[in-house]
C-alpha cells in the first residue's frame, strides 16, 4: 500500500495533498463551527428558558399566593407565544400541581425534575427547567417547563447539511484548483522525468526539456539541458578521437605489417643466403681439399722420389710446403666443421651436464695431467635440454682454450653455473641459468674481447700457445646460438678469463 502511494505520479500526489489539507482544514473548522454553534445555541436556549421560567414564575406569584389557579393558568397561557415551549407546570408551596400549560393535548404532563434549587436538564428532545418561585424571600411555589429542542436539532441538521454541501463544493474547487496549480509544478517534473526516461532507456542524449520558468524547477531543467549538451559534446569529441585513433591504429598496423613483411622477406633472404653460404662453404672446402691432397701427396712423392737430388734448402721448402698443406687442410676441415654445425639437425634431449664435463675431462685427461690442471666443479651441474654432443664440444673447446692459454705454474679451471637471484651479479637475465667456464690464464685484453669469436681469428703468433686454426670459439658461438643462447666473456688481462653462456631450452632439473 505504502509502496503504491510512493509510486503514484507527482500530479496525483500534489492534488492529493492539496485536497487532503483543504478537507482536513474544512472538516476541522466546520466541525468546530458546528460544535460551537450547537453549544452556544444550547447555552442560549438554557438562558432563554431560564429567564422565561423566572418571568412566568414571577407572574404566577400572586396567583399562587392567593390560590387563584384560574389566574395562574391564564398567566401560563402566555407561554403559547413561545412555540418551543411544550409544557409548563406550577406547583404550590406544598408541592401540589397548581396550574399548567400544554402546547397541545398530546403533550405528556410528566414532570422530570424534583423540587429544589434551579435545575436544568437536557434529556431526550427536550430542555427541562425547574425553578422555585420566591416572594419576598419566601418560597411560594415552583415552576417546571419543558422546551422542545426540535428546532435546535433541525437547525443543526440543516447546518450540517449546508456544511457538508459546502465541504463538497470546496473539495471540488480544491481538486479543480489543485489540478490547475499542479501543472505549474508537476508538468516540468513530468517533462523532466519523460526526458530522463528517454535518455536512460534509449540513450538518446538529444532529448531536451522546454521549461523557461525562473524557479528551482527552471534551474533544474536548465541544468539537465546543459548536462545533456555537455554529454553530447563529449560524445562528439569522443567519436572524433575514436575515428582518429582508428585511423592511427590502421596506419600503424599497416606500417607494422609492411615492416614485418619486409623483415620476413629479409629473413628468408638471409636464411637462403646463409644456406647458400653454408652450401658454398661445404662445396668449396670439399672441393678445395681434393687438390690440396694432391699437392700434399705430390710434395711427399717429391721428397721420397727426389729427396737425394734436393739440397738442404730444397728439403726445407718441401717441408714448409707440406706444413702449409696440412695447415690448409686443417683450415678447410674447420670450415667444413663450421658449416656442418650450421647445417646439421640438433638432437635436443635432457642431458646431465655433469656427465658431459666428465666425458670431456676423460678425453682431455692426458693434457690435463701433463699440465697439472685442477678442474673444479663447485656444485653439481643441472640437467639441461640440449644436444649432448654439441654441448660437449662447447665445454671441450672452452677447456682446451683454458689449458692452452695459461702461463701460470698452478693452473685451474672452474666449471659452474649461476642462477637468478643466487649470485650478486648483473649478468643474469630475469630467469634461467648462466653456465660459465673460468680459468686463471693469461686473460684477454679488452680491445680483443669482441673479436675472439671471429673465425680464424688468432690473437697470438701462429706457433705460440700450441697453434690452432682459431675456429674453436667460432664453433662454440655457433653451437650456443643454435641452442638459442648467448655467449660472452669477462676477462682481466693477466689474471684469467670467464666465458659465460646460456642455453635457451632451459634447465630440466
Amino acid at each position, binding site marked *: 500500500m505504502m509502496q503504491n502511494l510512493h509510486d503514484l505520479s507527482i500530479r496525483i500526489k500534489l492534488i492529493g495533498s492539496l485536497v487532503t489539507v483543504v478537507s482536513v482544514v474544512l472538516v476541522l473548522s466546520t466541525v468546530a463551527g458546528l460544535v460551537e454553534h450547537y453549544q452556544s445555541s444550547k447555552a442560549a436556549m438554557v438562558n432563554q428558558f431560564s429567564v422565561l421560567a423566572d418571568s412566568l414564575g414571577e407572574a404566577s406569584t400572586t396567583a399562587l399566593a392567593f390560590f387563584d389557579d*384560574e389566574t395562574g393558568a391564564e398567566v401560563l397561557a402566555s407561554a403559547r407565544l413561545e412555540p418551543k415551549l411544550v409544557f409548563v407546570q406550577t406547583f404550590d408551596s406544598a408541592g401540589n400541581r397548581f396550574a399548567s400549560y400544554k402546547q397541545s393535548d398530546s403533550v405528556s404532563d410528566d414532570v422530570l425534575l424534583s423540587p429544589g434549587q434551579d435545575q436544568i436538564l437536557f434529556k431526550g428532545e427536550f430542555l427541562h427547567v425547574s425553578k422555585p418561585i420566591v416572594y419576598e424571600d*419566601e418560597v411560594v411555589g415552583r415552576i417546571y417547563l419543558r422546551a422542545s429542542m426540535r428546532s435546535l436539532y433541525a437547525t443543526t441538521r440543516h447546518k450540517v447539511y449546508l456544511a457538508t454541501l459546502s465541504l463538497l463544493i470546496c473539495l471540488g474547487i480544491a481538486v479543480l484548483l489543485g489540478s490547475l496549480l499542479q501543472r505549474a509544478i508537476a508538468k516540468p517534473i513530468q517533462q523532466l522525468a519523460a526526458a530522463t526516461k528517454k535518455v536512460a532507456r534509449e540513450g538518446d542524449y538529444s532529448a531536451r526539456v522546454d521549461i523557461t520558468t525562473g524557479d528551482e524547477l527552471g534551474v533544474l531543467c536548465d541544468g539537465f539541458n546543459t548536462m545533456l549538451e555537455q554529454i553530447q559534446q563529449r560524445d562528439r569529441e569522443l567519436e572524433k578521437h575514436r575515428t582518429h585513433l582508428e585511423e592511427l591504429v590502421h596506419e600503424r598496423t599497416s606500417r607494422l605489417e609492411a615492416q614485418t613483411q619486409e623483415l620476413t622477406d629479409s629473413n628468408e633472404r638471409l636464411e637462403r643466403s646463409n644456406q647458400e653460404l653454408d652450401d658454398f662453404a661445404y662445396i668449396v672446402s670439399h672441393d678445395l681439399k681434393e687438390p690440396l691432397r694432391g699437392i700434399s701427396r705430390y710434395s711427399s712423392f717429391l721428397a721420397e722420389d727426389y729427396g737425394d737430388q734436393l739440397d738442404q734448402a730444397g728439403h726445407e721448402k718441401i717441408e714448409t710446403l707440406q706444413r702449409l698443406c696440412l695447415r690448409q687442410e686443417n683450415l678447410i676441415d674447420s670450415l667444413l666443421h663450421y658449416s656442418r654445425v650450421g647445417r646439421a639437425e640438433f638432437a635436443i634431449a635432457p642431458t646431465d651436464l655433469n656427465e658431459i664435463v666428465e666425458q670431456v675431462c676423460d678425453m682431455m685427461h692426458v693434457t690435463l695431467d701433463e699440465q697439472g690442471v685442477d678442474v673444479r666443479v663447485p656444485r653439481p651441474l643441472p640437467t639441461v635440454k640440449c644436444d649432448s654432443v654439441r654441448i660437449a664440444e662447447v665445454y671441450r673447446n672452452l677447456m682446451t682454450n683454458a689449458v692452452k692459454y695459461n702461463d701460470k705454474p698452478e693452473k685451474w679451471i672452474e666449471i659452474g653455473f649461476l642462477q637468478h637471484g643466487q649470485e650478486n651479479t648483473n649478468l643474469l637475465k630475469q630467469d634461467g641459468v648462466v653456465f660459465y667456464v673460468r680459468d686463471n690464464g693469461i686473460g684477454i685484453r679488452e680491445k680483443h674481447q669482441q673479436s675472439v669469436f671471429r673465425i680464424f681469428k688468432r690473437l697470438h703468433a701462429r706457433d705460440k700457445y700450441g697453434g690452432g686454426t682459431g675456429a674453436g670459439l667460432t664453433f662454440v658461438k655457433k653451437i650456443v646460438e643454435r641452442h638459442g643462447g648467448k655467449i660472452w666473456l669477462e676477462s682481466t688481462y693477466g689474471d684469467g678469463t670467464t666465458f659465460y653462456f646460456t642455453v635457451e631450452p632451459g634447465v630440466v632439473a
Partner: protein
Amino acid sequence: MRRILSTLCLALCFTALSHSSTADAQQAVRNREYDIKAGYFFFFGGYVQWPSNPFQGAEKEFVIGVLGSNPFGTHLRPGPDGFVIDSSQFRNSIGKIQRKRIKVIEYDSVDEFEMNYRPCHILFISRSSAPGSRAETVQERVSVALQKTKGQPVLLVGEAVNKRESESIAASGVTICYWNDLNADRLKMIINRQAERNAQLTIRAPLLHLSIVTLL
C-alpha cells in the same frame, strides 16, 4: 308505640351523627380557612401600599388589629419576637411583614375597640363575637371600625359567609371582604376601590386582577 320509639331512636342517632360530622367538617373548613387568611396577612403586606409613616411606630412594627373573636388560633400566635404566622402556605413560620415585627392587638368587643383603639396597618373584623362577651353583629363591628378609622390609612379586612353579605359589608366601606365560594371551594374576596382610595392605600395590580377578586 314501639314503632314510634324505634323511629325516634333512629332519628336521634341520625341527627346526632349528622350533627357531629357537620361540626367536624365545619371545623376542618374553618381551620383551613384561617390558615389561609393568616397567610394572606403576609401577602397584603406586600401587595398593598401604605402611605409613608401612617402612624407612630409603623416603621418598626406591622400592626394587625383583630376586632371580635380571634379565629386564627395557632396560625397567628405570639413568638419570641412579636407574633408569627404559621401557615401551610409557607414552609417556615413568618415572623416579619414588610421586614417588620408583627404585632397583633385583639379587641374582644366593640366597646373595648372604641376605648382602646390604637392605629394599625390592618384591622381584621371577625365574623363572630368573642366568647364570653356580649354578642354583637358583624354590622355593629363594621360600623364602629369604619367610624373609628375614618380618614386613617388602615386596611379594613372583613369576612362574610356568602357573597351577598360580603358585598354589603364591602359596600359599607370595608376595603377587602372575604367570602367562601363553596361551589368552587375557593376563598374569594371583594375589594372596594373607593374605600381603598379613602384610606390612602394602593393595592397593586396583580392582586386586583386575580379571578378570585371582585372589584366594587
